[in-house]
């Protein structure tokens, strides 16, 4: 399969990349690893005239600032992220999520920023449409969905594995625009609209992720459910962060994010509220898992029915709670 023609620009800094992006407008796309964009270009789903490549720019290794927050460069490859000792010590949840993405080769190419800014996917859209003689779907500027018969909207899902983990960790993203640098909570990066999944506009570059790492007692768990167990987009993923009171018995606050079952990562607010202030127990996990299922409404996708995903989500959420609780009892003095 061949790539269509384009002009290739290699800026010497992120600031220059942002300026070039604004200059070329919608004709240009930003690319680093290319593992999400190039297949779509080969399928003919998108045809940017100009590619602004960040591949030559070095990634700064993860650093911890005086507040104890972890700063991760968006250009860091997922393999380096999964292997970084600093990340593993501060937030093992992120290492685990990065390690669960695709394959070894793709983790060595793909970057954290690229994983967070990937396009939504569906089995109809992500293929070549050359010999199809049917009307295009919503995502190809048509007016129908082939996944859900008579569907009135697009059902493409957002499949990033690192996004749910980072949202549960309360991460924020630094966005570089030509004239300013702004920060936003990572969950505000996603619109929830499959046709335009990201809130960042032309000329803006995601440069850094900042993860708050409080010193309180904390248990985390990431579950990715797939059919084969490797080299696969998640059927669903759940990231759970339980912050405990100092006694290690009562849960002070919980953050639960579900990925791959909607047009963006979904925070389970009701579940989080039900968890806060409670003593951890198997019954509580069961109740909250049911609450998480009831409020997330999983999209059926890639052959998984909504009922199947609901059943799996309940089990995986419960398992995630148990793993997080186990971590708390195992390392009562460890802030990780």
């Amino acid at each position, binding site marked *: *399969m061949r790539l269509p023609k384009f002009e*290739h620009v290699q800026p010497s800094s992120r600031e220059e990349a942002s300026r070039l992006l604004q200059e070329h407008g919608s004709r240009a796309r930003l690319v680093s690893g290319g593992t999400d964009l190039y297949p779509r270009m080969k*399928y003919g789903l998108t045809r940017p005239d100009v590619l602004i490549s960040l591949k030559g720019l070095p990634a700064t290794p993860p650093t911890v600032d005086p507040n104890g927050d972890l700063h991760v460069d968006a250009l860091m490859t997922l393999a380096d992220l999964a292997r970084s000792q600093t990340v593993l010590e501060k937030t093992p949840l992120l290492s685990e999520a990065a390690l669960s993405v695709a394959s070894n080769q793709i983790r060595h190419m793909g970057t954290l920023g690229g994983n967070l800014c990937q396009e939504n996917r569906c089995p109809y859209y992500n293929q070549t449409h050359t010999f199809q003689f049917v009307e295009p779907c919503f995502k190809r500027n048509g007016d129908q969905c082939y996944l859900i018969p008579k569907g009135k909207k697009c059902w493409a899902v957002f499949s990033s594995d690192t996004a749910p983990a980072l949202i549960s960790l309360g991460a924020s993203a630094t966005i570089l625009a030509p004239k300013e640098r702004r920060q936003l909570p990572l969950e505000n990066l996603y619109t929830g609209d499959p046709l335009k999944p990201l809130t960042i506009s032309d000329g803006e570059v995601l440069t850094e992720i900042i993860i708050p790492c409080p010193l309180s007692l904390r248990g985390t768990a990431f579950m990715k459910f797939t059919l084969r167990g490797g080299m696969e987009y998640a059927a669903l993923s759940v990231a759970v962060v339980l912050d405990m009171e100092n006694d290690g018995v009562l849960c002070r606050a919980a953050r639960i994010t579900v990925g791959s079952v909607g047009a963006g990562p979904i925070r389970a607010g009701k579940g989080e509220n039900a968890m806060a202030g409670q003593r951890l127990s198997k019954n509580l996990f069961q109740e909250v898992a049911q609450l998480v299922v009831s409020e997330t409404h999983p999209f059926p996708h890639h052959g998984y029915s909504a009922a199947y995903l609901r059943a799996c989500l309940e089990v995986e959420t419960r398992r995630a709670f148990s793993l997080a609780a186990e971590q708390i009892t195992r390392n009562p003095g460890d802030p990780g």
Partner: protein
Amino acid sequence: MKQIIELSVNGESSEFAVEPQETLLEALRDRMGLTGTKEGCGTGECGSCTVLIGGKPILSCLTLAVECHKRDIVTIEGIGDGNDLSPVQQAFVDCGAIQCGFCTSGMVLSSEVLLKENPNPQEKDIYKALEGNLCRCTGYNKIIEAVHKASEQMVTEQE
């Protein structure tokens, strides 16, 4: 617009004028004649186009040739020395871990990287390292066996 790039493949440098949309895979196969690197899916799913850049396994079908200027590339032709096979290649032959052979170059390169980083891998480490390499003849058991054998042999040789 064509750009002039210098590719250092298996220790030998050569210069080419390439279009920006040309992938490393196309440069290796069509310009240099190194057809050991295979194109399977062309979209990053099968791993048969795996090559090593700076010692890391990457997919040459999703890498632009212009971005490999002056990078050290190792393909399957650079493993072993032409006459003698590397321990991994020999183990693949001995275990019969080859059926049609299309995935083999990618499998061998992924295994080489694994054994360099972790000379004594557990079964789950091998699964994780080879998860991006598909074999459609479904000969995975023998491939896992071959990696185990190569690892044992490399450890014995070092002793």
